[in-house]
C-alpha cells in the first residue's frame, strides 16, 4: 500500500460503502505510518465528501419528486441535463430520453441538448457492445 493508492481509493469513493472502505484503508495507512503528515488532510477530504454526497443525494431526491409531481415540462434546463447526464443503466437511459423528449416538446424555443445525447449514445453503445460480447461468448 502506498499513499498514492490510498489517495486514489479516497477520491474514487462514490457510495457510502466505498467511503467507509476508503476510511478503513486510511486508518490502516496511519497505523503503519503514524508520522505521515498528509493523512489528516485525506481524512478531512473524506468528511467533506460525505457532507457533499448527502447534499447531492437530497437534491437528486427532490428532483425526482419534482419530476413525479409536476412533470418534465416544469424542470429547468439544468435539471433536465442532470437527469440525462446521470443515466447509466439501460432503464435510466430510456427514462432520460423520455424526459428529454417531453421537455423539448414543452420548450421548442430551447436548443437540443446535443451534449446530453452524446453521453447517452456512448453509454447505450457500451451496453450494446457488452450484449454482443456476451452473445458471442454464449454462441
Amino acid at each position, binding site marked *: 500500500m502506498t499513499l*498514492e493508492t490510498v*489517495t*486514489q481509493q479516497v*477520491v*474514487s469513493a*462514490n*457510495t*457510502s460503502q466505498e467511503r467507509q472502505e476508503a476510511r478503513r484503508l486510511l486508518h490502516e495507512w496511519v497505523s503503519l505510518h503514524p508520522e505521515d503528515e*498528509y493523512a489528516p*488532510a485525506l481524512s*478531512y*477530504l473524506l468528511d*467533506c*465528501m460525505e*457532507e*457533499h*454526497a448527502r*447534499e*447531492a*443525494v437530497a437534491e*437528486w431526491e427532490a428532483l425526482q419528486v419534482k419530476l413525479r409531481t409536476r412533470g418534465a415540462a416544469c424542470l429547468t*434546463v*439544468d435539471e433536465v*441535463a442532470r437527469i440525462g*447526464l*446521470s443515466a*447509466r443503466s439501460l432503464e435510466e437511459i430510456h427514462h432520460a430520453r423520455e424526459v*428529454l423528449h417531453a421537455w423539448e416538446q414543452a420548450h421548442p424555443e430551447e*436548443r*437540443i*441538448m*446535443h*451534449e*446530453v*445525447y*452524446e*453521453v447517452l*449514445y*456512448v*453509454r447505450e*453503445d*457500451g451496453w450494446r*457492445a457488452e450484449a454482443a460480447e456476451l452473445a458471442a461468448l454464449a454462441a
Partner: protein
Amino acid sequence: MREELEQIRRALEEMLGRPSRWSGVLELTDDPAVNGSKPYRCDIVLNSSLAGQDVRWRTLIHEMLHTFSAGYNRRDFDDAPGWEEGVVEQCQRLLRPAVLARLGVGADEAIFAWAEASHRYNGYIRALETLRQSLNVPVDRFFLDLLSEPIKTRAALVVALSRALPADQHRGFLRTFSAALTTLKRRPE
C-alpha cells in the same frame, strides 16, 4: 468529413506529441439529437447534417480529442464523465484556433461562441476551472496534463498538485475539490 478528421488527427498528433487511437472509421448518423459521439470502440460518430457547416469544426475536434484521452474506457467514463467531457471540451476550446490555423480554415469564432454559451458541459468546465484557479496552474498546462493522465487517476493527480499549496490554503482547496467531485463524477449514492 472523413478527410477533415484525418487532417485534425495529424494536426493534433503533432501538437500533442502522441498518436491518436482513432480507428479511421467514421460512422454517419441522421439522428438529429446527436451531433457527434466517440463510443468506446475507436470509431467516431458524426451527424451527416454537419457537413459544410462551420460549427462542425468544434464537434470534429472534440470527438477527435477523445481519441487522445488516456484511459478512455467504459467503466472509468461512467464513474467520472465530467473528468472526461469537461477536460476534452476545454481542450477543444483551447486548441481549436491553432488546429484551424494549421488546416488553413478561417471559420467565424462567433458561431463557436454561440454554440458554447449554453453548452451542457460548461458545468464540468466551471468545476475544473475552480480547481485550476485555486491551484494557480496555467490553463493550457492544467487541461493538457489532465488529457494525458488516465481518466481514473485525474482526480488523484489534482489532489497531488494541491500538496504544493500553503498549509493555510490546503483545507479550503480540499473542500472546493470535494464540491467539484459531485459535479464531475457520477451521481453520489
